[in-house]
């Protein structure tokens, strides 16, 4: 047992320690030039206590920090009454997510891999001006409670992010590729060749007309669906009656072409998880089954409010959190959208006139829980099934519970998405929407 828990049991009813240690190495090349190498070490600790039935919390860098227990106990004097307790069962750990090879990589190895990617891109496209970032993270998360739960899970992850700016540079976008995984595997030559080809699509701006058009969303844009959906199935918004999905379990919500699973241990996702941020075991399950809503997601608090058990979906880093400072909230630890059976190139060829959307801006600004979106988009215009230049000054808008009711098809290719500031990991295909409102500035 951690010393802080031993001390806590002498003065409070219950205690829970969350201790996250991360080591990250990064290198970044810009135009063939090494911009920087970075080494980051971070240790963060959250202590929650229940004292006289009330919850309090304190945060610091290490469980050894003496003031943590006193601060949390002091905070508990004002905290709310909590009629539930911390986790008492130690979950069994899923398959090891540590790649021994990744764990011992040096900064030399990273620089070498990124340099080789640069050289290969330059061979394929001598006028390309690539940005290549390579990062490796080793993470260890330990959660222990005074009730006997004590588990530690480690994982490794590598990320390659490559941007090939369009040749005319009239924009700050370009062809964008992201490759991540647990086991060290730099991007293949075929993957790089595909990216180099996508760069040639950006030969200049091409504005669609204002109106309704089909839109093919790239896997990196799956957050357009997932962020509002997760807000809607959150036990917190359901318990507060602010979710539009209250009383919608078992009802058709989205297109029958869409199945969304939660799979926290999916090896293709960033940092697979066996337990959530309150130490409750994570469970793979369907969230949307062929368009039908099948499950809400809860943490200890919202589960109590709904009269259920926690589904193991407590997450400390939700929308825009950058540290572990926030209250655990219900979210999804790894979303998987089931793929279709056509290639994304076939989807483009068959869509007639429309948009290929590769990035959205301003998603966080809308009425997320309600599902409304009104966002600027990057991507490409498609005319007669062929790419015709990049989008500029283009917004798409609507409500996810309208536009994702009409999904024409999904691609067979899937990609893992970056967590970014939105903090949702997903594995998603390209999604072809029948129609979305397009406004051009």
């Amino acid at each position: 047992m951690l010393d802080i828990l031993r001390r806590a049991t002498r003065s409070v009813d219950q205690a829970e320690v969350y201790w996250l240690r991360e080591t990250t190495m990064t290198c970044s090349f810009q135009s063939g030039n090494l911009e920087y190498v970075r080494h980051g070490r971070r240790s963060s600790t959250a202590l929650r206590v229940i004292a006289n039935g009330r919850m309090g919390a304190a945060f610091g860098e290490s469980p050894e920090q003496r003031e943590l227990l006193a601060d949390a106990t002091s905070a508990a004097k004002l905290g709310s009454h909590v009629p539930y307790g911390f986790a008492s069962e130690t979950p069994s750990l899923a398959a090891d997510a540590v790649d021994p090879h990744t764990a011992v990589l040096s900064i030399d190895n990273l620089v070498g891999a990124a340099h080789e990617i640069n050289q290969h891109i330059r061979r394929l496209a001598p006028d390309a001006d690539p940005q290549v970032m390579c990062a490796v993270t080793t993470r260890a998360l330990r959660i222990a409670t005074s009730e006997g739960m004590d588990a530690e899970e480690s994982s490794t992850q590598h990320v390659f992010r490559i941007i090939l700016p369009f040749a005319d540079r009239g924009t700050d976008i370009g062809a964008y590729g992201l490759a991540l995984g647990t086991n060290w595997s730099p991007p293949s030559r075929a993957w790089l060749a595909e990216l180099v080809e996508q760069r040639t699509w950006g030969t200049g701006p091409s504005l669609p007309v204002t109106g309704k058009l089909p839109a093919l969303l790239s896997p990196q844009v799956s957050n357009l669906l997932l962020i509002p959906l997760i807000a809607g199935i959150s036990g917190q918004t359901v318990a507060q009656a602010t979710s539009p999905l209250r009383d919608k379990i078992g009802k058709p919500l989205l297109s029958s072409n869409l199945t969304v699973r939660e799979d926290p241990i999916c090896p293709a996702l960033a940092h697979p998880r066996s337990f959530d941020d309150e130490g409750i075991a994570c469970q793979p399950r369907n969230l949307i089954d062929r368009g039908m809503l099948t499950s809400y997601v809860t943490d200890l608090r919202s589960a109590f409010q709904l009269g259920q058990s926690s589904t193991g979906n407590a997450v400390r880093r939700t929308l825009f959190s950058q540290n572990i400072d926030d209250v655990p909230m219900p979210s999804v630890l790894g979303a998987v959208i089931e793929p279709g059976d056509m290639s994304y190139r076939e989807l483009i060829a068959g869509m007639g006139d429309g948009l290929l959307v590769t990035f959205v801006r301003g998603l966080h600004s809308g009425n997320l829980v309600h599902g409304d979106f009104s966002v600027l988009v990057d991507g490409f215009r498609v005319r007669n099934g062929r790419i015709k230049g990049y989008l500029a000054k283009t917004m798409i808008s609507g409500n996810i519970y309208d536009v994702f009711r009409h999904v024409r098809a999904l691609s067979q290719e899937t990609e893992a998405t970056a967590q970014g500031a939105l903090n949702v990991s997903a594995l998603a295909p390209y999604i072809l929407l029948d129609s979305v409102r397009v406004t051009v500035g």
Partner: protein
Amino acid sequence: MMDTLRRALQALDVDYADIRFDEERKTKLALSGRDIAQVAAYNPRGGYVRAYVRGGKAIASFSRIEEAAIVAQQTAAAARLAARHTAQAISLAPAPVLEESFLVTTEHDPRRVSLAQKNELLQHYNEAALGHAHVLTTQFFYDDSFAHRAFANTEGTAVEYEYLIATILGVLVGRRGDTAQRGLFAAGGSGDFGRLISRDEGIKRAAAELDELLGARPAQAGRFPVVLDPFGAAIFIHEAFGHRSEADLLQHNPAIRERMALGTRIGSPILNVSDDPTLPDCAGSYPVDDEGVRGRRTRLIVDGHIVGRLHSRETAAVFGEPLTGNCRAVDAGYGPIVRMSNTMIEPGVSSVGEMIASIDDGFYVAGGGGGQGGIDFTFASRWARRIRNGRLAEVVSDANLSGNLFTTLKAISMIGDDFQMIEGCDCGKGSPDGHQQFARISAGAPHIKLDVATIGGIEC
């Protein structure tokens, strides 16, 4: 602590290195409806090192002050490695050596207010919000933060500086039929706890806006003339231009950099924009940045022409432009990058009445829903009304606005005389360490009129 930092830099075989250590003390209270969702105290601490050797650059973060010397040595070694792959040397603009302490003093210091009193104030606003029949639930947050930072570099600069800030944010949620909407409340954004007291009018305003939004139809999408309220205009200049005045975002895009050369006309001739971290009591105020460079007022646009840019020591060297003291880090986990401070549209001569009267068919947009910058930019309204025949008409929801850097600033045809700074604002931006969220910034503006802007409403 300063001695430890200076010792860590001694005898490093580098062209330049600096080191920073942050100690922070934060309080957070969160209410969800009548439930207290969180009462917490925070003591984050950590350090950051940068080393430059023959044009190669290495950076590192660490958690404990005892690690400072070893991390500094490792970072210097990494910079030597980086130099082997660096054809284009990274250099720093010269900066004056500074040895000074900048400690915060404030009359109504939140550190002297008890947790119970802070909770009582938050509960008061929460109850006031929940007292409105159409408010289904609420989320209220109280945050205060005191940060002490020490910075030293191998040139002899050694500065200690502090930040103190307290804010209250409130989200009022209502539901009518299938429609859920939010009303937003924000107060504070400085080290003065007094600014959080007696703000009941703001709760009433947020509740009234929520009531109107619940009965509103979504905005019609299209191109319209728009009047932005001071909050909207402040967010507009932050997203539309401010981010592109941050030199690191221009550095690697030669075409955009050329289009934004100093002297270029980018806006209407009545447009003047500046950034000023020396303003008293604003969220983006500071005496010295995280490279040990003094903050100063920088004029960015004068009479519609670009006249300045925001810089770090690296970008100032690349662009050959003066230092501005805008290189900042959110906290100990992050290195400094170019950030805005308090960015403003300077006041003009028009009245909001004249602006509305000049529009036959358009929108009045109040800002506050967030936004995102780029060559194309967007931001969300907090609340909006149609303008018809020169008069304010019905309230509409979901009036998100977008535009383009090179066209929208030229569409500003009127600037008001009613300048206001906004409270409780923060900003996110990507960096080598990940996404740096919640940088303390502020922005200010009077009402402005755009002759044409894109409204990405939900309705056709």
